[in-house]
């Protein structure tokens, strides 16, 4: 009787191991999406950024220093000669810009939010988009594919409530092995593709895999792309409150 019990327990253990392995190989859409959200959570981040904008046969390079706390506070100071002194401060959903030319601060709101940020392929609204994807979209695994030699899951996200998201549909390519987001396509309500994000490089910081080089293409801008590079990334180091102040913006 005892032997029989042992055999049953062993069989159950083997079955459980097999089941958990299959879960790792075939995660649910929600799990994949949650992993992406988790990867991008940080308490603070500091880095030196470089934005390379190629548009209409011309190339512009903008450099900056960035401080951010959670997904509510960030401060950007441009350091390239053409834009030196231009600073952005974001607090919650408000975005302010200080321009050294007019020596004043403007609130970027309304239709301005839809304009290109510093001539790049990203809009201000894209930059402000900070809520987790899991809370806003319903994911479905669309299939699997090979992207740049990597096996990937293709995840299709549809907004949970109609008419609530600026991009009602998204498509994500997720590395099967690492769970990294490698590519994202953003769609309009009509189904037309608007933007494509390609992750070019990922760095490992502790237990996080952090995208540090991303290419953005606004498909309505002809011959245009923006590559965003993050260098000297420091995560979770306390940042003083004085960084995210109006005084720091105008200094």
């Amino acid at each position: 009787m005892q032997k029989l019990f042992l055999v049953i327990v062993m069989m159950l253990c083997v079955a459980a191991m097999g089941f958990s392995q299959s879960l790792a190989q075939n995660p649910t859409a929600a799990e994949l999406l949650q992993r992406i959200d988790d990867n991008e959570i940080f308490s603070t981040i500091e880095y030196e950024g470089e934005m390379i904008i190629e548009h209409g046969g011309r190339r512009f390079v903008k450099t900056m220093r960035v401080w951010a706390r959670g997904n509510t506070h960030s401060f950007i100071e441009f350091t390239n000669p053409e834009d030196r002194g231009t600073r952005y401060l974001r607090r919650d959903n408000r975005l302010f810009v200080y321009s050294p030319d007019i020596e004043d601060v403007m609130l970027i709101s309304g239709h301005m939010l839809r304009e290109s940020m510093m001539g790049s392929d990203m809009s201000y609204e894209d930059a402000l988009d900070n809520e987790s994807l899991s809370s806003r979209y319903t994911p479905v695994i669309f299939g699997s594919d090979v992207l740049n030699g990597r096996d990937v899951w293709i995840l299709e996200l549809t907004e949970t409530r109609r008419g609530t998201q600026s991009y009602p549909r998204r498509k994500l390519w997720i590395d099967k092995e690492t769970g990294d987001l490698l590519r994202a396509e953003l769609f309009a309500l009509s189904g037309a593709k608007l933007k494509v994000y390609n992750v070019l490089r990922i760095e490992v910081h502790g237990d996080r895999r952090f995208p540090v080089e991303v290419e953005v293409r606004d498909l309505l801008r002809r011959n245009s792309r923006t590559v965003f590079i993050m260098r000297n990334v420091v995560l979770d180091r306390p940042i003083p409150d004085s960084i995210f102040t109006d005084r720091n913006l105008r200094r």
Partner: protein
Amino acid sequence: MTLRNIWELKKIALRNLSRHRVKTVLTCMAIMVSAAVYIFLNSWLGGMAIQSRRNIVNYEIGAAKLQTRLYFERKDEMPSYETFLGWEQFREALYREGYYSAPRYVFSGTLFSRFGSVPVLFHGVDPVFEAQTMRYVPYVDFPYGFGRYVQSGKPEIALGILAAERLRVGIPTRPLRQELEELIAEVTRSSDEADFIRSLYENAPPVRDPFSPREVFVTGNERLILRKDTSSAFKADLERFWNMIAATSRNDVRIRAVIDIKAVPETIRRTRWENDLLPLLRSEDIALVKAAYEYEEILDAYFLIETDELQKKLILDAMIRAGFSGAIRHVNQLLDAVVVGVINSPAPLPNGNTAFIPLDVLQGSAGMMLEGAVTELVIRKKNAPHHRLPGQSESAEAITAALKRGLAAQGLSLPSELEVRVWQDYVQDYLSYEAVQTGAPQVIAYLLFLLSFLGISNTILMAILERTREIGMMRALGMTDKQIIMTYMLEAGFLGFIGSVLGIILGCIINYPMVVHGWDLSNMANTLSGGIGFRTTGIFRSMWNIPLIIGTGVAATLLSACIAYLPARRAVKMPIADSLRFE
């Protein structure tokens, strides 16, 4: 003093004028120039102002609009989320009461062609009602614009000519030769077709207008212009050319817009609640909003607990009025369309970065999620004369009363959130600009007038000084002081009369070609990116302001006479004996 006495004194005054011809002529000329400048400037500026106002009413706004109160309050932001339903019943009610009206959904976005992009103000319209109410619609046709107006049920666009030129869609009116050859290579299949297109153009004449930029061309790449021909044969040629272009993908465009939807937010972060919402709410709305939300400590956010739909609407209005961005959701949209017509009207707005698209294609997820809603109903009285500005029958009160009567006949009432506003309410900025633009030159003309009156005063003063002994002699012979003063006032009055009559004649001669032909400032307007402030396109016409012209003559005569009073009074104050001894 009787009229007969004055009639007798007139002879002395006229004789004095003829005795001092040189002075008379010079003073009259000064008055003539002042009067002519005053009449011309007033007529021209008045003409531009009235032309602009007519254009605003006929081509841009209509006599009035029906909109939500909140839309009007925030109209500068173009709040496309401020819509209303049931426009059909309002239109029907207005129609019963003798008004045409047309529904519109106005939104901003970017229009992309193969050659570029421009920011555009889009108007979702009902083509039939729009043509009934607004006058720009025929200007999509020959000999003004190209193509045709949009038709319901098709994703089509009628585009302002400036936007069309920038996007290089439709027939180019001023292409460089190389641009035309590129177009020819794309749209033609034979050399005959290529020659046909080339035959529609001629070399642009050299620029003589001082306001136009000088263009320097590489040989073989000159500026061409579309031939100016109003014959039916040329119309047929242009239609053929348009069809050749339309057969390619050259007129295909994409509209990129953001659908703004207002909705009461389910959750509001505490920091936003404290910093963005509460400080901006009207004091009477704070309690309403606070009662509708509950603070959740764990998530550090406020959650909506109100379930009553009517209360939610009030909360939403309060948030919108406060400009709380959390109450507006944005959805990106991209629509494909084809340009079927190019508008070239007498008003700059429909010709600029403006597009008209059928309202029915904007419904649902494939459009702008309108579900029957519109942002405005533009209104005009049936058969309103286009050359006149709206009168009493097109006032806000009259239209509102008519609308209420029409709705009552259907057993309906006007919702409290809707209101009728007249065209002036939407163009306050322009009206202020117009006041400045028409006021400043008038001040200069007034100053000119003032200078000429000072000249008259001086002339009379000199005449009195020269004729002091003569005055003394006349007084010694029995002329009363009043008669002396009247003589000089008549003399000055005649100067003013002769000068102003000549000024009126000269002013009318200058004004005539400006009324009939106008002054084409289109090159200057184009150089200044589509306008010089007034709401007219290029040709600025003057007007005949008969009361002003007559008033100028009367005023110049009376003022001249009055201005002589003081020096003449001074002359009669001198004792007669002193006057006779005066050297």
